[in-house]
């Protein structure tokens, strides 16, 4: 372990002297998060109205008015529970439940804010016409999971660039093999595994530090709402381990440092896009949404969504487990090839 720590310490010193590492780890993601957050701050997610409304016990005049609009399609639901289930399943965009005491309960979906707003408008207009305070806007979000734009891009950019940051540690073993310093280390009275552990440690330290710095910076500079700090830290550690594992696997497959860097960059880009770090892929539904769950980035963002909604530390158990499972899979694939890194 002593040798591994020595190697990690030397690597981190080298990385800190390399300004490009600081740029990739902290400056660029912070700048991009700021830019995207400012650009999209006042822009809604732009969903078109999914004007398939469920209605429970609707008054006949309202049904006639809405059906004749040509814009809104009504689906009769047997009860409020069925209506809520329909919204959660995505079968209907929103639901209006008319109660016997002349109240209207509007059930919306946070991922479709425009649809929810239209449903609310319909309910408000109806209530104004019949008079009184008969509107109850209940639980406008069936799931309060959507991040505000600033937090979304803060978390998205942080986890996107994380995969570039951790490259520096694991790929440096290929640089050292090329430059001859790896052989020099292996001739020293240390175990060969110490070199690998040292390199992994470098990636983990760089990754955790950069993510913590970004979380703090975006919290104070961009008012990003990350949620429970302990939960955020758990997500960060799991995300760093997942990122390091996939980059380490690629390093075992590549023959040269340039090849490793090229493949790692491609992997970071594809996983980042698929994982929804630039736009919420989950909203696309279907195959894309399902495929995004194969990426640690998607699980990281899910965890941040849960924490930002006010859930406690326990809420991140699922995302943390998913990211660690991803890391375990990558590690299992990399282990048989690890000897190639040291040339043995």
């Amino acid at each position: 372990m002593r040798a591994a720590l020595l190697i990690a310490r030397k690597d981190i010193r080298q990385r800190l002297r390399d300004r490009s590492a600081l740029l990739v780890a902290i400056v660029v993601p912070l700048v991009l998060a700021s830019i995207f957050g400012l650009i999209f701050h006042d822009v809604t997610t732009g969903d078109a109205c999914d004007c398939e409304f469920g209605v429970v016990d609707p008054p006949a005049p309202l049904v006639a008015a809405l059906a004749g609009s040509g814009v809104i399609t009504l689906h009769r639901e047997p009860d409020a529970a069925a209506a809520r289930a329909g919204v959660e399943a995505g079968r209907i965009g929103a639901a209006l439940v008319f109660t016997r005491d002349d109240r209207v309960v509007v059930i919306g979906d946070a991922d479709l804010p425009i649809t929810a707003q239209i449903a609310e408008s319909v309910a408000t207009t109806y209530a104004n016409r019949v008079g009184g305070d008969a509107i109850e806007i209940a639980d406008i979000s069936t799931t309060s999971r959507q991040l505000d734009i600033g937090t979304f891009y803060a978390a998205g950019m942080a986890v996107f660039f994380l995969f570039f940051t951790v490259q520096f540690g694991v790929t440096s073993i290929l640089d050292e093999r090329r430059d001859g310093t790896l052989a020099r280390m292996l001739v020293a009275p240390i175990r060969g595994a110490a070199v690998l552990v040292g390199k992994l440690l470098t990636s983990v330290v760089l990754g955790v530090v950069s993510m913590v710095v970004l979380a703090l910076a975006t919290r104070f500079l961009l008012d990003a709402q990350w949620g429970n700090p302990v939960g955020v830290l758990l997500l960060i550690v799991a995300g760093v381990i997942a990122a390091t594992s996939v980059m380490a696997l690629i390093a075992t497959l590549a023959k040269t440092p340039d090849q490793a860097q090229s493949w790692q960059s491609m992997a970071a880009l594809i996983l980042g896009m698929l994982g929804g770090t630039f736009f919420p892929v989950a909203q696309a539904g279907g195959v894309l949404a399902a495929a995004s769950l194969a990426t640690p980035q998607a699980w990281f963002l899910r965890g941040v969504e849960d924490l930002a909604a006010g859930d406690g530390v326990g809420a991140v158990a699922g995302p943390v487990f998913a990211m660690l499972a991803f890391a375990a899979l990558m590690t299992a694939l990399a282990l048989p090839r690890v000897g190639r890194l040291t040339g043995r």
Partner: protein
Amino acid sequence: MTVLECRDLQKRFGRIEAVRGISLTIAEGETYGLLGPNGAGKTTTISMVCGLLEPDAGSVVVAGQPLTTRSVEPKAAIGYVPQELAIYPDLNARENLRFFARLYGLAGAQAEARIAEVLEVIGLTDRARELTNTYSGGMQRRLNIGIGLLHRPRLLILDEPTVGVDPQSRNAILESVEQLAGEGMAVLYTTHYMEEAERLCDRIGIVDMGELKAEGTRAELVARVGEHDRVRLAGSGALDAAAAACEALPAVQTASVTDGSLDLIVDGARGLLPELLAVATAAGAAVKSVEVEEPDLEAVFLQLTGRALRD
């Protein structure tokens, strides 16, 4: 005391037999040269001795301990100076030395004292805090060697340390090796430069095609193949008579006249020259120039392998 013992080392890469049964020993304070052309198997042999490569067969024992790629303790006795520069360009000399010193178990004040000492030996004390990517090639080479010396190894292995080096730096490197050998360090030195082997090494192993063709001191190797000195007397006059007269001398093996020169094969040319000149002149030859080729390792290599050392 034996510091290094290699027995029947073998290594194959696919169909290529890079090392075929090399055995050698090096005693404390001895400088042993592995002399051979590029591709002879020197670096592969070194890699097995250092524990970088696992031999397919054979064994390596360093300071009495068996050494494999998984060994830890025996490696503490080895100092390794690779052929290519193996230093960190984005660290300064002191940081480079400190890192490797700590890998070898030196710490604290002991490490700092030794680093200062090595910096003095390699002449980089004044530049110790500058990044090594600002150094000249010669300075980088000196640091490359200095790292190998940090932990006072019992066996210093230098793999062609002067390849691509300017003459001044090369001479400095050779002087350093001579000094270290004089201090009692065992040295394994690989080279394809005959003159380096002749200058530095107590014993020389001639390697070609993965095999140790011959081994011994310079004198033993030269005597082993029975080479004689070649003497060429260029001139005019009665060269045939001079040839006959010279051939009558006991130390002269053969004498012939070729293109206006008298070519002789003799034993001990340096001591025989005055007599040869006197006899040739007395026989009627007018000698204008003298060339003497003493047997050397190049000739030994040629005799053993049929190829020149630098082919």
